[in-house]
Each structure stands twice: as structure tokens, then as C-alpha cells.
């Protein structure tokens, strides 16, 4: 068997499967998918941001208060949506940035924060 024959087969399988995967998942737009997508995109840049739209405000506030002794200001309630709360994190210091980063990370638990949008 020539190496290039095998490499061609492997490359073909990878290319076809990746295309099919792209087709399969690019149409998935659930809230959780959107959240995860944004978390991956935004988490590294959190120090530029100061607003988090949280889901369960009680949990988020409790987390911030107990772990970081920091109380976010709830600036908007949206009870009609699963993303029911907008939290403003200000002033933007090292502590609040880490707190925000932590909240974002906690979004990994899909029951914790449902939707998260951070204006850049």
C-alpha cells in the first residue's frame, strides 16, 4: 500500500464528514447552543465588557455576593423570557472581571444562565 493512497482516503473521509457535520449542526439554534457559542467567543475578551444578561438572577447574585462580595445592579427584568434579568457589572475592576468571567464559565451548566449577551 502506498502512503499517499491511504492519506487520500483519510483526507476524503475527514472532508466529507466535516462537511456533513457542518450541515448537521449549522442549523441548530437553540438557546443553549447560542449561549455556548457566545461563551466561547466572548469569554477571552470579558475584560472589555461590563454587562451580562443572566438567566436565574438569584443564583447569579448569590454567587457574586458570597464569592466575590460584589452585588451586581439589576437593571432590567424580563419575566416573559427565559433570559429574565440583565445584570450590570460596574465598575470594571479585576475582581468584577473575574466575577463576570466566572458567571460566563458557569453558563456551562445549562440550568444556571440561559442566555448571555455581552455588548462589545
Amino acid at each position, binding site marked *: *500500500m*502506498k*502512503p499517499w*493512497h*491511504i*492519506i487520500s*482516503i*483519510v483526507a476524503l*473521509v*475527514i472532508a*466529507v*464528514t*466535516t462537511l*456533513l*457535520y*457542518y450541515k*448537521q*449542526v449549522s442549523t*441548530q439554534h437553540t438557546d443553549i*447552543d447560542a449561549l*455556548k*457559542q457566545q*461563551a*466561547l*467567543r466572548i*469569554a*477571552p*475578551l*470579558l*475584560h472589555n465588557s461590563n454587562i451580562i444578561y443572566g438567566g436565574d438572577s438569584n443564583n447569579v447574585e448569590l454567587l457574586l455576593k458570597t464569592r466575590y462580595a460584589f452585588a451586581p445592579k439589576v437593571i432590567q427584568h424580563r419575566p416573559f423570557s427565559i433570559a429574565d434579568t440583565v445584570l450590570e457589572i460596574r465598575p470594571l475592576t479585576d475582581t468584577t*472581571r*473575574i466575577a463576570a*468571567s*466566572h458567571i460566563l*464559565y458557569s453558563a*456551562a451548566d445549562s440550568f444556571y444562565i440561559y442566555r448571555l449577551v455581552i455588548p462589545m
Partner: protein
Amino acid sequence: MQRTSLYILLLGVLICFASIVYFYGLVLRLPFLVIVLLFLAGCYGISRWAAGIKTETDTSPNRTHLAIIAIGLFLIAGKTLELAQKHGVWDAWAIWNLHAAYLQNAATWQNMFQNILHAHPDYPLLLPNTIAFLNNILGTGNVIYTAFCFHFAITLLIPLLIYLQLHTRSFILAILSLWYFSTDDTFIMQGAYQLADVLLAFFYLSASIAVDGIKEDKKMAAVTAFLLGAAMWTKNEGIPFACLFCAFHARTLFLKQNIRYTLSGIALPLLTLLFFKITYAPANDIVNGQDQSTFARLTDISRYKLVYHSFRDAIYQYFYFPACAVCLSILVALVRNKMPGMNVLLVLACCLCYLLVYIITPIDLEWHLQTSIQRVLMQLMPMAMYASPMYFTGNSIFRFRATFLQGR
């Protein structure tokens, strides 16, 4: 060793090299173009160096094997698409892909070390660095397609490597192993979930194959050592594996004519790992959790029982066939009145080492076992599936028959 197998092993070397170059690029704040040029220069150097490595001549019929390989790989592809999730499972997107997203940004990558709770920023960086590097080359901000493609490629390379190594020794066993990998949900699932365990399994397997090639060419000692370094640079489990591997293969790796290659091979990944652990990584939760209570955990019989039952259940449920292969090779060794193969013993020693870590873990044991025993055993599975048939076939299936006849 087959020529194609050597190329696959060198691909493993290049993956590790790319992640190391990218890591130092981030640390030294090098422009991305410089990182790419350094990587390309390294690729050129490695390919020139490896061009002279001696390999077996493959005279197998081309079309039959290619057809078998194509069928096997497409079966894996079909199953992968069935099992794949958009972002992988929790560990994938909240640890590995999230780290990759951080590492993609040269200005803010160190923010990842602030997510201490549950995010495991102490994990080595081979996988996220490689995905970040590829993503920067592709110029896309979305890691999920790169991650999927990368993990899928590694998932394919494992059965392919085993098939290539086995088919000249035993055609039947080569097909059986390819069939097993192509239909095994546990293995394919780990790749589809985008976790680091399949990549680690690939490095374990590659190192085992490379060490077998040292008798053909001593340069393979450097490849083996570099792949061991790659395993350490992938996950913390790679560190005890590399130590055990060096202990079991000490007579080959540290032979007078090989030691120069071994040390030069392991130097770069090992030094990079040490630099990362000393400079950036926070303490590991398991290592940090060791104190006076460790002795109490070690003497708690109920923990041993729980670990044993979980291990037994995982073997029965997910790894019955590989476990049978290991047992069979031990049986063959007993019949031949010889020691089992080094790699078979290494698999068993690694299992014991992993189980010992469970005994002393400061994390809730039941939760720890439930969430990880299947994954850590999966890391060793491809190596077991390679080492066992390689041991009892030797050069042909007839040796396997002769073994039992000799035993009578």
C-alpha cells in the same frame, strides 16, 4: 514499521511541535506570522531528519486493503455524525474548547488562568493550543468546526495505525481490530465528544508503536520520547504513563546507543511542560488535596471496594473485548512460559496506577469514578488492542498456533 505508520507518528510529533511553538509564541508575544514560519521551519527539519528512518517494505495487495480501510473509516464517520453534539460534551466546550478560545487571542490568553473552579487551568495545553493555532491559520473565530475536524482525524488515525501495524502479521486480527473500532460506540463517542482522551490514547498508542521500531532504527527512540512528551503535554495522566513507559522500556530507551536520541526527543516537550507548570498553571486539585487525610483514604477498605466494582463494571460494560485480548496474551505468555509483552504489562501497570489515584483522590470518589473511569480506561484501550495481538502473533498467525502446540 510501515512507512504510512511512520508518517502518522510524525504527524503526532508535528501536532505537539505546533502546540509548543504556539505556546512560546504567546509567551514571547511573537507575531502569528513568525510562529507559522517557525513551525514550517520545524516541519522541514523534522521531515529531513526522518527521511532516512528505515521502515518495512509493504508488499500487500493494494486494492483489498484500501477497500477495507475505506469501509472501516466510513463506518466510523457515520457513527461519529450520529453521536456528535454541536459543542461536544460539557468538558469539551467548557474546558478544552474554551481554553482554545482563550489561547486564540494573544492579548488576553492569560485570563484563562483566572477560571480556577472547575475549569482546570492546570491542564496541559497541547490540545487547546493546537486548535487555537489551526483556528488562527484558518482565520475563523469559531472553534467548534476546527475542534470537530481535529478530533475526528485523531479518531480515524488510531484504528488505521493498528490496522497498518497488524495486517502484515495477521490479516484476520487486523480486520477484527478495525471492525471493533468501527463499531465500538465507546471509542467513537469519545472522539465525537471532543475530549482530550482520544488524543491521549493516540499518543500512548504511537509511543508503543514507535518503541517497537527502535530495533529497526535507533532514531525511533527520539520519536518515542517526543511522543511520550506529547502525552504529558496533553493531559496530566500522561505524566505517570510516561514514567511507567520509561521504566518498562528502560533497557531499550536508555541503551547506550539510544539514550542520546531519547533525551533529545523528550527534552522540548518536558521542558515546556515544566515551564508551564511552574510559571502559569495553578496547583492541580488532586495533588493539592493531599494532606494528613491521604493516609486515611489509603487505609479505607470501602474505597478499594468501590474502585474495584467501578473498574469491573466499566470493563464488562465498555471494554470487554480489549480486556479479553489482554487476558489472552497473558494466557499465551503462560503457555509459552515467558513474560507477557512489555506493552501488555504497561497497560496493566497504568490501570493500577489510575486506580491508585482514585483511592487517594480528595474529590468525592463516587462522582469521580462515575465521571471519569470510562474515559481513563479508554485512553489505554487502543494500546491494549495493539499490544496484545502484536505479542501473540509475532510475525504471523502461525506463531500463535505454534505457541499452543508447543504448550502441549
